[in-house]
């Protein structure tokens, strides 16, 4: 275990499910959607609720997400995780679940997320600012009075710094949105499927300079779940396992004003650690799912995970390498920019990575994908978690 390779191949994702809609809205309460996703993911795996003895979720009407979910499901798990780091929570849940399974703390774990911010907005409930303004938090005292539009303003600050330091351009960031939309065009479930150009991105309004509206993710309803179990059991189940080859986390701050370096995220720690555990380098990744809350989020991940050098993410993405036929197929579902983004996108990174490794992706399938990365970003570039997944051939 002390060799840093402890989790490699010990556990696998064996079931996945998600539900989104081109309308951006889906029916059902958050808890009902979670139950629906868990049922579907277990069916996908060939398992049942009776097999589940580990549960992870980060979202709840009350104060104890995994307690409330397990009670709703009527199960009594012996491994539980309510870790809340925003959109990267689910990559962390997978990391923790793989570790728990490897140590025998549980045998079958479910990780789930559901949210309906688009429907909530129609009903006049929910919203980021509602949550941010509650109580005398450090953010309320030292950030909110200055009127930074959240969350996009936080990412805009990082983009402004990256532009000033490395000469990154709005055109380069825009190409990330263009490449992602090319993938979305091939996904019938995606919210936005019409092709866009760099000029379209630059002509869209600027909610927080230097980011344009088309640099920003969607606000939709959505739900998803993954099921993990040990490698030996995984081989006997319905679908080909997606083995956890490596997983690591690093969080650097909570408020954007406390980010130690606006041009370097925790992925500079989580990425190399996850790759080292997997025993591979970034050059061996066949398909990448990199959290795209904003185009700058992807650009920073490309650099910090080592797909290109620091400062060169703009030029790297501008070549179109992230799109269909490119050297690094990225966000093949259409991502948070065009597929779905129900507040947090991390679960969908995992679901799409597994579907690519199984060869289930139809017209958007990356041929021969054996190694995938699901890289989550939570908060405001705050919490990074990298999961390297692979097929049996990659073990």
């Amino acid at each position, binding site marked *: 275990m002390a060799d840093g390779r402890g989790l490699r191949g010990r556990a696998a994702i064996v079931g996945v499910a998600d539900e989104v809609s081109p309308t951006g809205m889906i029916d059902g309460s958050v808890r009902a959607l979670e139950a629906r996703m868990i049922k579907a993911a277990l069916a996908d795996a060939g398992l049942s609720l009776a097999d589940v003895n580990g549960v992870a979720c980060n979202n709840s009407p009350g104060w104890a997400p995994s307690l409330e979910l397990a009670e709703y499901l009527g199960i009594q798990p012996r491994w539980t995780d309510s870790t809340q780091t925003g959109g990267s929570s689910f990559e962390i849940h997978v990391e923790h679940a793989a570790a728990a399974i490897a140590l025998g703390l549980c045998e079958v774990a479910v990780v789930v997320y559901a949210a309906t911010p688009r429907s909530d907005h129609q009903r006049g409930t929910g919203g980021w600012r509602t949550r941010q303004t509650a109580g005398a938090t450090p953010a*309320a*005292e*030292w950030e909110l009075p200055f009127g930074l539009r959240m969350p996009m*303003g936080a990412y805009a600050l990082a983009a402004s710094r990256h532009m000033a330091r490395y000469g990154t351009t709005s055109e380069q960031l825009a190409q990330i949105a263009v490449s992602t939309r090319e993938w979305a065009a091939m996904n019938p479930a995606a919210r936005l499927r019409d092709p866009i150009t760099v000029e379209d991105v630059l002509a869209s309004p600027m909610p927080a300079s230097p980011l344009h509206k088309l640099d920003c993710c969607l606000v939709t309803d959505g739900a998803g779940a993954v099921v993990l179990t040990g490698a030996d059991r995984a081989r006997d189940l319905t679908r080909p396992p997606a083995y956890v080859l490596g997983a690591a986390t690093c969080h650097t701050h909570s408020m954007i004003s406390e980010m130690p370096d606006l041009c370097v995220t925790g992925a500079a720690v989580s990425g190399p650690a996850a790759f080292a555990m997997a025993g591979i380098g970034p050059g061996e990744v066949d398909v990448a799912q990199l959290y795209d809350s904003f185009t700058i989020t992807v650009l920073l991940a490309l650099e910090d995970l080592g797909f290109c050098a620091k400062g060169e993410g703009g030029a790297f993405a501008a070549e179109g390498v992230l799109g269909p036929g490119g050297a690094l197929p990225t966000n093949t579902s259409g991502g948070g920019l065009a597929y779905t983004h129900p507040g947090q996108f991390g679960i969908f990174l995992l679901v799409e990575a597994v579907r690519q490794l199984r060869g289930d992706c139809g017209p958007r399938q990356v041929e021969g994908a054996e190694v995938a990365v699901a890289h989550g970003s939570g908060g405001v570039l705050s919490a990074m978690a990298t999961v390297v997944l692979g097929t049996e051939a990659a073990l």
Partner: protein
Amino acid sequence: MTDDGTTRVQPPESAAGAPFWAGTRERRFTLPWCRACGRPHWFPREVCPHCLSDDLDWREASGRGAVHAVSVMPAGGAGGAARGPYAVALVDLEEGVRLMTEVIGCDPETVAVGLPVRLVWQPLGDGRHLHLFEPDR
């Protein structure tokens, strides 16, 4: 285009931040310094984030610094419809800490990374003042 403070989200006053806000009532801009390790920190905490000492000393700061990062909010954004375009910035202070603020007193589009800035106070309406910055020409 600068606002009068009435459309802002008013900052709450935490126990850790109370000495700072008390200073602003007299237009004194102070930072918490640790007597144990000799370093300043931001945001205000009950203990020094470098060494966890609670032996803190509030010292007056120069109020000078440079823009580290900036984003311009359009009219009708989060600050309320009454606020026109305005520049939210992270500013590196001479003392070595970074804080969020707004840069006023110029066209917001001209606020660039590296711009030298100096403190300017804005009344908050309850006797406290908010620490904004303007170009240091």
